[in-house]
C-alpha cells in the first residue's frame, strides 16, 4: 500500500509518428521500445531503463525477491538469446507484381530486417523463436501505402498477379494472426498501414472524426487532444496498436464503460476488398438496413480486406480524472462488489479487480521508498488493514478504479462506488495503488522479456463470462487446471497462475489470466506452454467462458470456432469470405 508516486504517465506521451523505419526505435525480438526494459543490476535489484515511463530509471527493490520466490528462478541462471538472424530464407518475389508496383510509386522493401519485423506478433512462441534466432516463413516483401487509393491499387495488383496480402497495423497481435501460413506458395506481401496515419477531418457538430486506419492509438489520442477531443478508446496495447487493427479484431478499451468498445465507437468504415470497396452511403447513427455490414468487417482479422478509413465518435476531453482503489478481504467479496456496481450501472470509466497473486505482483514493482516517513506510513497502512481490519494478506485483493468527467460528478460518482464497496467489506486504499495498477498493464509485457532471460516464460489470455459462472468457478477452475497441467507436463516449479477482472457488463465480465512458469529442465518449454494454454482454453470453454473477449481468434484459437459459433455460423462467415475474396488474396488464414 504504497503512497509513493510511480506509474505510467496517463497516456504515453513520447511516442512515434509512424515512419518507414518504425522498427528503429522498437525491439525486434521483444515487446515495445528498444530503450525500455527491465533488468537486474549488479546488486541484484530490479531496474527499468529509458525515459518513457514513470517507472523508467527507478529501482525496484522487491522485484528480485518476488521473482525468485514466485518462480523458483535464480538470477545466476540466465538464458541469453542468440542473435542469429541469418536463418531467414531469401524472399520469393512475384516479379510482375513488383514491376507494376514500382510504376505506382508506392514504397516497398524486401530487406530482411523489414520482413522479419512484420513476420510475427507477440505470442510467446513467436518471441521465443525470435530470441532463439529461429524465424519461420516471412513475408517476401513489405509495402507502405500512403492512402486509401494506394491500397486500392495494391489490392488490384495482388489480385491480378495472385499475390498473398497480409495487412499489418501495429504488430501487437497475440493470436498468431500475423504468422505467415507456411504452406503458402504465392509470394506474401505485408501491407503495412503505418503511413496512413492522418486525421482527415473532425466534425464538431456531430462529434465525429474521420481517420486513416493506420494511425497508432497514442498518436490518435494525442492529435485529437490537441483539438480538445479524445476517442476514449484505450486498449492496453494503445502505445503500439492501430485503429485498423482495433476494427479488425473487435478491440476493447479500458474505459469502455464511458466510451464503449470499438463497435460502439465506429460510425463508418471503408474497406478495400478483392471484390471492391465496401462502405455505407451515410453516417446515420443507427440503421435498420438488414444485418449491419460493419459487423462482417469488425473482427474479420484481415481475411476480407484492408480497413483504410474509419469515422469514429469523439468526446471532449474530460475535465477531471481520478484514480482510486479498494481493498477487499477476498476475491469473492470483490467480485460481488463489481457485480453490484454493474447491476446499478454505475461503473466508473474503468474498474478492475486483481486477485491476490496479482496484488502481490503489483507490490513487487514498488519503487524504492524515498523517505523514512513514507515507509513508516506504508507500514502503518499495512498494519491497519491486516491487523486492525483482520484482512489476510494471502487472500485480500484490490480493485483499481478510474473516474472521468466533470469534477463534481466524479466526486459524487466516487462516493457512490465507495459506498457500494463498503457493503462488501471494501476499504478505500488510495489513488496511488489505483494508478500503479494501471501502470502494470503497460509494463507487464516488458516483464515477460525479463523473465525470458531467466528461464521464465509466460503469457496472458482472456475471456468473457456470465456473472453467475465465474467467481469461485471459472477463475478457480482455470487457475487450478493450469497448475495441474504444468505438474503433469513436468514443469518443476509451481507456475504463476493469476487472474483479474478487467471489464464489467450488465450480463457478465471480462477476465484476464496471466500464466508464467520457470522452464528449467524442460526440453521443449514452448510446446509445454502451448499444451497448458490449450488446456486452459478448454477449461474456459467448458466453464461457460467465451473463446475471446478482445484478443481475437487468429490461428491460435481457430480450432474452437466451429464449436463456438456452430457449423452453420461458420458456413455463413465462409460464404462471405468466398464472395469477397474467392482467390484468398487475403490469405493469412485467420479465423476460418
Amino acid at each position: 500500500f504504497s503512497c509513493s508516486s510511480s506509474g505510467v504517465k496517463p497516456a504515453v506521451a513520447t511516442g512515434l509518428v509512424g515512419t518507414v523505419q518504425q522498427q528503429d526505435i522498437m525491439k525486434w525480438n521483444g515487446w515495445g521500445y528498444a530503450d525500455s526494459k527491465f533488468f537486474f543490476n549488479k546488486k541484484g535489484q530490479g531496474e527499468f531503463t529509458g525515459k518513457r515511463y514513470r517507472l523508467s530509471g527507478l529501482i525496484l527493490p522487491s522485484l528480485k525477491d518476488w521473482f525468485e520466490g514466485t518462480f523458483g528462478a535464480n538470477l545466476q541462471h540466465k538464458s541469453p538469446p542468440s542473435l542469429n538472424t541469418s536463418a531467414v530464407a531469401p524472399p520469393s518475389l512475384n516479379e510482375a507484381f513488383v514491376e507494376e508496383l514500382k510504376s505506382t510509386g508506392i514504397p516497398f522493401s524486401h530487406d530482411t530486417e523489414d520482413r522479419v519485423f512484420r513476420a510475427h506478433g507477440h505470442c510467446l512462441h513467436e518471441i521465443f523463436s525470435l530470441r532463439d534466432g529461429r524465424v519461420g516463413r516471412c513475408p517476401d516483401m513489405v509495402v507502405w501505402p500512403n492512402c486509401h487509393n494506394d491500397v486500392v491499387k495494391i489490392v488490384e495488383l495482388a489480385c491480378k498477379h495472385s499475390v498473398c496480402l497480409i495487412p499489418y497495423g501495429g504488430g501487437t497481435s497475440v493470436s498468431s494472426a500475423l504468422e505467415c501460413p507456411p504452406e503458402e506458395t504465392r509470394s506474401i506481401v505485408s501491407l503495412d498501414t503505418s503511413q496512413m496515419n492522418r486525421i482527415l477531418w473532425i466534425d464538431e457538430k456531430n462529434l465525429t472524426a474521420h481517420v486513416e486506419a493506420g494511425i497508432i492509438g497514442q498518436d490518435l489520442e494525442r492529435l485529437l487532444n490537441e483539438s480538445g477531443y479524445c476517442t476514449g478508446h484505450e486498449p492496453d496495447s494503445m502505445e503500439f496498436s492501430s485503429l485498423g487493427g482495433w476494427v479488425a479484431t473487435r478491440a476493447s478499451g479500458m474505459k469502455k464503460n464511458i466510451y464503449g468498445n470499438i463497435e460502439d465507437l465506429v460510425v463508418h468504415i471503408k474497406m478495400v476488398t478483392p471484390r471492391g470497396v465496401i462502405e455505407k452511403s451515410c453516417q446515420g447513427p443507427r440503421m435498420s438496413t438488414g444485418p449491419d455490414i460493419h459487423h462482417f468487417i469488425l473482427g474479420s482479422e484481415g481475411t476480407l480486406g484492408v480497413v483504410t478509413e474509419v469515422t469514429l465518435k469523439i468526446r471532449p476531453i474530460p475535465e477531471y480524472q481520478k484514480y482510486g482503489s479498494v481493498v477487499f478481504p477476498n476475491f469473492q467479496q470483490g467480485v460481488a462488489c463489481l457485480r453490484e456496481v454493474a447491476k446499478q450501472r454505475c461503473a466508473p470509466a474503468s474498474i478492475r479487480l486483481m486477485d491476490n497473486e496479482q496484488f502481490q505482483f503489483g507490490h513487487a514493482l514498488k519503487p524504492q521508498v524515498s523517505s523514512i516517513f513514507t515507509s513508516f506510513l506504508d507500514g502503518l497502512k499495512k498494519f491497519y488493514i491486516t491487523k486492525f481490519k483482520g484482512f489476510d494478506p494471502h487472500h485480500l485483493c484490490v480493485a483499481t478504479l478510474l473516474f472521468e468527467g466533470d469534477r463534481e460528478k466524479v466526486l459524487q460518482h466516487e462516493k457512490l462506488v465507495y459506498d457500494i464497496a463498503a457493503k462488501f467489506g471494501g476499504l478505500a486504499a488510495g489513488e496511488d495503488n489505483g494508478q500503479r495498477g494501471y501502470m502494470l498493464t503497460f509494463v507487464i509485457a516488458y516483464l515477460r522479456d525479463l523473465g525470458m532471460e531467466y528461464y521464465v516464460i509466460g503469457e496472458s489470455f482472456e475471456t468473457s463470462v456470465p456473472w453467475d459462472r465465474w467467481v469461485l468457478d471459472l477463475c478457480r477452475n482455470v487457475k487450478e487446471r493450469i497448475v495441474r497441467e504444468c505438474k503433469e507436463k513436468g514443469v518443476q516449479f509451481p507456475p504463476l497462475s493469476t487472474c483479474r477482472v478487467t471489464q464489467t457488463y450488465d450480463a457478465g465480465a471480462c477476465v484476464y489470466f496471466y500464466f508464467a512458469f520457470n522452464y528449467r529442465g524442460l526440453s521443449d518449454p514452448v510446446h509445454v506452454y502451448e499444451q497448458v494454454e490449450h488446456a486452459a482454453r478448454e477449461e474456459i470453454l467448458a466453464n461457460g467462458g467465451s473463446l475471446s473477449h478482445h484478443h481475437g481468434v487468429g490461428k491460435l484459437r481457430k480450432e474452437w470456432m466451429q464449436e463456438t459459433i456452430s457449423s452453420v455460423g461458420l458456413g455463413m462467415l465462409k460464404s462471405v469470405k468466398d464472395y469477397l475474396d474467392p482467390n484468398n488474396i487475403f490469405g493469412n488464414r485467420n479465423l476460418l
Partner: protein
Amino acid sequence: RCLAPGALPRRTDPVLKKRDDFEDILEERRNSSDLRYAFKCYTPVLYRGLTPCKAATLKSMVLQSEQLLHVINQVSAESGESTDVVKDEAAAILEEMAHRLQLRTIRFFAYTLSKAFKALYRSVCVNEEGIQRLQQAMQEHPVVLLPSHRSYMDFLMMSYILYTYDLSLPVIAAGMDFLGMKFVGEMLRMSGAFFIRRSFGGDQLYWAVFSEYVKTMLRKGYAPIEFFLEGTRSRTCKSLTPKLGLLNIVMEPFFKGEVFDVNLVPVSMSYERVLEESLYARELLGVPKPKESTSGLLKARKILSEDYGSMHVYFSPPVSVRSLAQGRINRSQFNLTPRHVAQKPSEETQAFVNDVAYRIVRLQQENMVVKPWVLVATLLLQSVEGMELTELMEQTSWLRDLARMFGAFLDWPDHTPCSMVVSSSISLHRNLACVSGSRISLVVEGPQGPETPEEALFNRAVSVLSCASYRNQVLHVFLRPALLAMALSNANSSRKEDIYSCFDFLRNVFSDEFILSPGASVQDFDEACHLLVKCGAVELLHQDVVMAESGRTFFYPSSLKCYEVLSSDLQKNALNALIRLNVVRRVRT
C-alpha cells in the same frame, strides 16, 4: 493403475493387479481402552477452502438456494398454493431428511461399536494405503464414498473406520425405513445419516430439496458423501446393477463447473460371514423382510455371541470424475441455461453416468476379498448331496489356482496346508456345512418333530440359497469366461463372429443378473478369450475360437439348480430378460 478412459489397455491381465496390504484395526482396540478411544482427540483434515458450518446453517443455505426457490415458484404456480405454503412444505421435507451430525453421538458409537465389533469379528482389516489416498483426496476435492452393500453393518463400519483414522465423517444417504426405529433412527441421524424416501417418482419438490441438499454439501466440501450405488443390500451377495439417481446428483456440480473435480472412492466391504445370511435366504424365498424396529434390533443381540470371522474393507484409489469425463462430456452444453434451472441430462450424459456407475461397481467387485469358504461353497453346490472330503480338497485347490489365475483377490493363508484351510472355514460355517465321516454335506435345519414336505423343501432351499450367497461372491471372477464357455457350446460354428454374437446375446440375457457394463461387450469378449486361453481351455486359431483338448474339464454340463429358481431375485431378473428379449410383454403395470 490409471483410471482415465482410453488409458486402460484393451486387455488387462487381472493377475497383474497390485493390491495394498491390510492392517487389522481391531488389534489396537483389543489392547487399549475403548473409552479413551471414544474420547480421543478427533481433528480430521478438511477440504481446503472449507469454512466449516453447522448442520442448521446448511439447511438454511439449501432453503435459500436459487435452485430450490426456482422450483418452489414453479410448484406454487402449478398448484395454485402460495409460495409460503410450498416453502413450508420444502422446509418440512428438509427437516425430515437432514442429518444432525454431532461428535457426541459419534463418540457414543465409537465406544459401543468397538465392543460389538470385537465380539462379532476376529479382525477388521483395512488397507491403510487406501486410507492415505483418501485423506489426500479429501483435502483436494469433494469426495463421494461408494461402498458395496451387503449388510446393515456397512455404514456403521464405514463411519467407524473413518473415525479411527481421523478422517472427516461422511454424511450417509439412508432409507426412510430406519426412521421407523424409535431412538435408533435419530441416533443414526446424529451420526451423519440423512433419510430419503424409497420412491418419490414425480414429486418435483421432494427431488429439488433432496438434490439441492446433497449438492450443497458437496459444493461446500462440507463432508464426504456416502451412498450405496446398489441402492439396497444385496440379498444374494452378488453386486446389484447400479442405481443412477444420486450419482447423477453428485456429478452435476462438476458438469456445471461449480467444483473443479469430484472424486469417487469405491469401497469394497467383504464379510467372511454376513450377519443377515439366513434372513436373506428367507427373504428371497418370499418371507417378508422383518420391519426395522428397535425391539427387533434388541432381539438380534444374540448374534453377539456368534463368530463372524474376519472382515475386509478395501478403499480403492479415488476415481476422478474429471478425467473420466475427459473427451466424453462436453461441459459447455450446460452453459446455455442458468445453473439454477434443472436440466434433464442429455443422452450423452446419462450414458456417461451409467458407464461410471458400472465402472465403480466393477471396481468394488475387483477388490472384494474372496475367502476360502467361498470356493468350498461353490464346489459344495455342484454336488448338493454331499461329496468326499478328499475330493473337495483336491477340487478346492484346483479352483483356488484357477481363481488366482483369473485375478480373484483371494485371502488364502500362506504356508498352510489346503486341508487345514478348508476345515477351518467349514468349522466357521458349521451352520451351513457339516462333515460326517469322510463326507461333507449341506446342513439343513429342520424342526425337532416331523416336518411337512413343504417345510422340508423350504428348509433345504434356505440352505442352498445361503450357501449360494457365498458362491456368488466369486462369480464376477468367472463370469466372462463362463459366458464364453456357454457361447462356445451354443454357437453354430467356431467362427469368432458367431461365438461373439452368441456371447453378446448371453450378456444381454444376463445383464440384470450380473454387472456387465453396457457397451463393453468387445472388451469383455477379449478378456474372456484371454483368460480361457491362458488356462488352456480354448485356442484362438485364425478366425476361430475352439475348445482345447485339455480344456474339457472346464465345460461341465451342470445340473439345473432347481432350488435357486425359487429365489425371487432370480425370477425377477429372468422375467426382465424375457421382457427385454421381447419374448413376453407386460400387459398391465
